[in-house]
């Protein structure tokens, strides 16, 4: 699914309950992170629940592309991780730098639905992804 398709799907949902159920479903359908990658090395700090993000790099025509695997032990956050992975799927470090993730979450209508502590979690995940991109 592309992020535009995701935004279209979200548009069809008008109350928070349906949106939350859809987020939980996105998380449930995401591939689980192998247990051996759920280590402190890949943990995202600053989230209330446990969150892991694992980057991988591929080279295509001399250009580096980043992809991520991720997971969380909480169901709603797992869904948020799934959205984040979709947003940052197969991007160059420069593209990652330019993505305004806050705007995407606003388009998803999730801005109002995210509690401040989870918004911090979102910020922590985005920061981590930008860190990986900048370190390439």
């Amino acid at each position, binding site marked *: 699914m592309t992020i535009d398709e995701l935004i279209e799907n979200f548009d069809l949902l008008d109350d*928070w*309950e349906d949106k*939350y*159920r859809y987020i*939980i479903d996105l998380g449930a359908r995401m591939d689980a992170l192998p247990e051996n990658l759920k280590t402190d090395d890949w943990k995202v700090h600053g989230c*209330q*629940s446990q969150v892991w993000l694992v980057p991988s790099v591929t080279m295509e025509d001399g250009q580096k592309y980043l992809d991520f695997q991720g997971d969380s*032990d*909480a*169901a*709603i*956050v797992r869904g948020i991780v799934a959205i984040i992975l979709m947003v940052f799927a197969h991007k160059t470090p420069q593209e990652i730098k330019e993505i305004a993730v806050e705007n995407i979450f606003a388009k998803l209508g999730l801005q109002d*639905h995210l*509690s401040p502590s*989870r918004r911090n979690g979102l910020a922590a995940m985005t920061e981590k992804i930008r860190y990986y991109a900048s370190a390439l």
Partner: protein
Amino acid sequence: MYDVYKIRQDFPVLSQRINGKPNTFLDSAASAQKPQCVIDTMYRLYSSCYANVHRGAYYLSEHMTQEYENARKIVQRFINAASEREIIFTRNATESINLVAACWGRKFLKPGDEVLISQAEHHANLIPWQVIAAETGAELKVFKIADDGSYLEEEYLKLLGPKTKMVAVTAMSNVLGTVFPVRKMAEQAHMAGALFLVDACQAAVHHALDVQQTDCDFLAFSGHKTYGPSGIGVLYGKYKLLDSLPPYQFGGDMVEKVTYEKTTFDEVPARFEAGTPAMVQAIGLGRALQYMQEQGMENIAAHEAELTDYARGRFAEVKGFKEIGTARGKGGVFSFVLDGIHPQDIAFILDKEGVSVRTGHHCAQPLVERMGYTSLARASLGMYSSREDIDIFIAALQKAKTFF
């Protein structure tokens, strides 16, 4: 008669709607809401009689000083201390305990000495002792509690001995609600030659305190949990003990005589209140304690005990609900897990229903782990909590279960 609905009207926050729903505030154990009289008191001070205390020879400063010192007397009466000089204003209970660990610990703890705490301590009554023990060569001992959160006297007595110099224990666990028999424990500590410090953060909110009857040497609590402002806390200490301790911090308002070569320090409690104190907050705290006393500490305790029974009865209706901490006589603090759902997921759904609960390790990480978890959800009661709060909470839990 204790009319909880009338009391609720005194707390303006409670009539706010949260996410379009009634404000079901079940996180008073983290920080309690404030009655209008406390808000009014602080507004009055800032708008009509604000000035620094203990300094100016002018009307406003005299007036503030008088109100500040009166707040100290209110605290003294609230915990039944022998003298108002035994009351030190701090930022919060954390600072109160750090003050004792730093001033008393550094002066009196020697290699081989022991500090004894329970497994149920908040980080604020654990880390200061851990650090001061490491610094002085003393050892921190931790006595066990039962799997249901109950106090185990034999475990306490097993570790209480001639090497024990300080026992520091919560009067009521912020995670399990367990009430510790601090009066008897203090007596046993004294028999062993140890001092006894009570962390009364939770207890101060729910029961009348009496430091003379408990015969504790130190007692700490925070203003923001007792319906008072944030930024103000209390340390009680027996006068002779406080008088034997060096100052905690250094600066203005705590000195007798200063020259470039040497400083002699003021008497207790001024010695421990360096710098301009949180005076508006202290006076606000005094008003909050008066407010509780106006409602009657026995009435508050009775209301909360009745509501605790009601809540625990209703928990039984929620399939998969497991209360963590079920000691007899526990207070209105309910840590729980639900059907293997992550506590944060529960909290997100509850939040949408206007229900505020705490999740995580509750600043008691070793305790939560000892109970077998990394994270717990917690609902807690205050003097304004009602049966409707519990009903909405239960309905929101049932709803949350449908999501996962």
